[in-house]
């Protein structure tokens, strides 16, 4: 317990220290411009990190509660954005209503998929079959998008416009709002997990499924709901980020892979872990791309993954809240 609090503190200090030192260094070495760029990158990392955290926690939840690593997780990020686009284009619904409807749709898919596909496979001869199914699902979804919407990136309509002045550079409001909304959702999730019955049932399930069911937790309906919630979290990320990162059929693949890295780094079933893990990954990627090599941006995640698996396979926060 004590060690855990230390880990949060250490990490927060580390990140704060990095920002502080970096600011000073870049100001000294590169002048005001360098400093602006640094802060820009920091803000970008925080925003991207926030969104990553959502996707990651969605996966973490499903993995922790259902013991299933949903290989198609990233594709629900894409799905939500495409469904929103469809509502806008086909029905003429306004963007916000489309977004919310899309989210509801993705959330509803959770129990449907869980009951029809995953549960029978999971309880069959070999639990590994369940995620071979998610593999097939991913293939199916990506090609569905390809067939319906074509291979070229699409841009969902922006909801926020304008820019903020950040030490001389302009940071798009859209991105900032994405980060803010992500942060609000994370806080909401925290309170949900800590204080609602559902949240407590979830935490119990993650720690010890059998005992939880003995205490009256209706395991199967919670699993179905959690799957829906996990998918919805991936969906929200796609909706938030779609307008500026654009959506194409394989858009969700990289976020999905990164979500996996973050879940391993942060610890399965842990909200804190997803948040801190996401921040670390986002910072590493942004600054790695800026100062080391842009082409290998995605490789940093892989590096983090391997290091975590070698040195601390249960992740930074194990199974804590």
């Amino acid at each position: 317990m004590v060690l855990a609090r230390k880990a949060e503190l250490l990490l927060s200090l580390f990140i704060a220290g990095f920002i502080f030192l970096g600011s000073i260094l870049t100001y000294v070495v590169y002048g005001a411009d360098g400093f602006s760029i640094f802060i820009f990158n920091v803000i970008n990392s925080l925003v991207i990190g926030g969104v990553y955290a959502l996707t990651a926690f969605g996966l973490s939840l499903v993995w922790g509660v259902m013991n299933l690593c949903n290989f198609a997780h990233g594709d629900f990020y894409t799905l939500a954005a495409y469904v929103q686009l469809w509502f806008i284009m086909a029905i003429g619904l306004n963007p916000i209503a489309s977004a919310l409807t899309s989210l509801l749709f993705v959330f509803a898919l959770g129990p449907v998929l869980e009951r029809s596909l995953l549960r029978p496979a999971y309880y069959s001869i070999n639990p590994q079959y369940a995620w071979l199914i998610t593999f097939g699902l991913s293939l199916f979804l990506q090609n569905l998008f390809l067939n319906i919407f074509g291979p070229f990136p699409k841009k969902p309509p922006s909801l926020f416009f304008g820019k903020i002045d950040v030490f001389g550079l302009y940071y798009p409001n859209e991105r900032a709002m994405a980060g803010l909304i992500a942060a609000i959702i994370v806080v909401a999730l925290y309170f949900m997990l800590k204080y609602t019955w559902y949240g407590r049932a979830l935490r119990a399930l993650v720690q010890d499924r059998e005992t939880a069911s003995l205490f009256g937790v209706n395991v199967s309906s919670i699993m179905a709901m959690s799957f829906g919630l996990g998918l919805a979290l991936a969906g929200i990320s796609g909706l938030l980020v779609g307008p500026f990162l654009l959506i194409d059929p394989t858009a969700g693949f990289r976020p999905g892979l990164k979500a996996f890295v973050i879940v391993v780094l942060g610890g399965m079933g842990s909200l804190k872990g997803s948040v801190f893990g996401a921040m670390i990954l986002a910072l590493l990627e942004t600054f790695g791309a800026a100062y080391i090599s842009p082409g290998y941006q995605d490789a940093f995640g892989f590096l983090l993954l391997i290091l975590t698996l070698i040195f601390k396979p249960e992740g930074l926060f194990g199974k804590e809240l």
Partner: protein
Amino acid sequence: MRWFMVKNNVQKILIFLLPIIFLAALPMALSRYWIHVTIITFYYIILATSWDLLAGYSGQISFGHAAFASIGAYTAAILAIDFSVPTAIALIAGAMVACLIAAALGAACVKMGGAYLALTALGFSELVRLVLVNEREYTRGPMGLHVPPLFEGQTTFTYYYVQLAMTVISVIAMYKILYSQRGLVFKAILNDEVAAGALGVDVVRERLFAFSIAGFFAGLAGALYAFYIGLITPSMGALLETFNAVSMTVIGGYGTLIGPLIGAPLLYISSELLRAYGELRYLTFGILVIIVIRFAPEGLVGLLKKALIVIMRRGLAEGER
């Protein structure tokens, strides 16, 4: 393993030789396009069989398999082009390098189970793809690397026999490995790893061995492909190619040797026949994978076996009348 109704060795050899004779005679009857299709089918047979060995037999489901094919291809190509290594030697060298790297990946993943292994392998294959894309000096990046032919005067027709021979050799080699002592040991590990270890099985070594062999044959397939097709790109090692190998194995029959032998031709040839429908084919594969795992996890081989049992029972019943 009962070869259905085969009783003596003569029949066994016939069953074995007939398809080979058929395949050897085939090119005389086919157009160049269809010979090409058959050659690519052989590529997929080796790729899918090696994945099946890794996943179905040693229980290590990896979603990064195609990376080894691309490693084999690029190694062989670079050796032949930049270092003037004779193509036949470059071919084997490509396979060996893929084998070694597979062994390294296997060693890193040996303590991981299920999803961790699959996704680390995926992360690894993305890393490989990134390297191939970024290091343009050696690999020409996404524009593709031109590869010299395997031998002077190579044509589609003559290359067919090289490919056929290598495919037959590879499949027989993998068969020998699986239907031997080691096959039994693999099965035991899948049934109960701890009990197997307590009886003296070095589980880690067996798993590494499986990885190395799978990597070797995937690399060999890749190198063969490179020398045939003359132009290789990093997308050879992309997730889609792994999807193909997985789909072929699963639909054909996961965990059986014949599965990929049936699945690869079935899927690839039908995808060629359905070329007119464009991307709809991969959509269908995705759905097929889901349906097969959900309703017939033993794939086509499983269904055929069941059908055969029904037929034999009816035959016996008839005979008794």
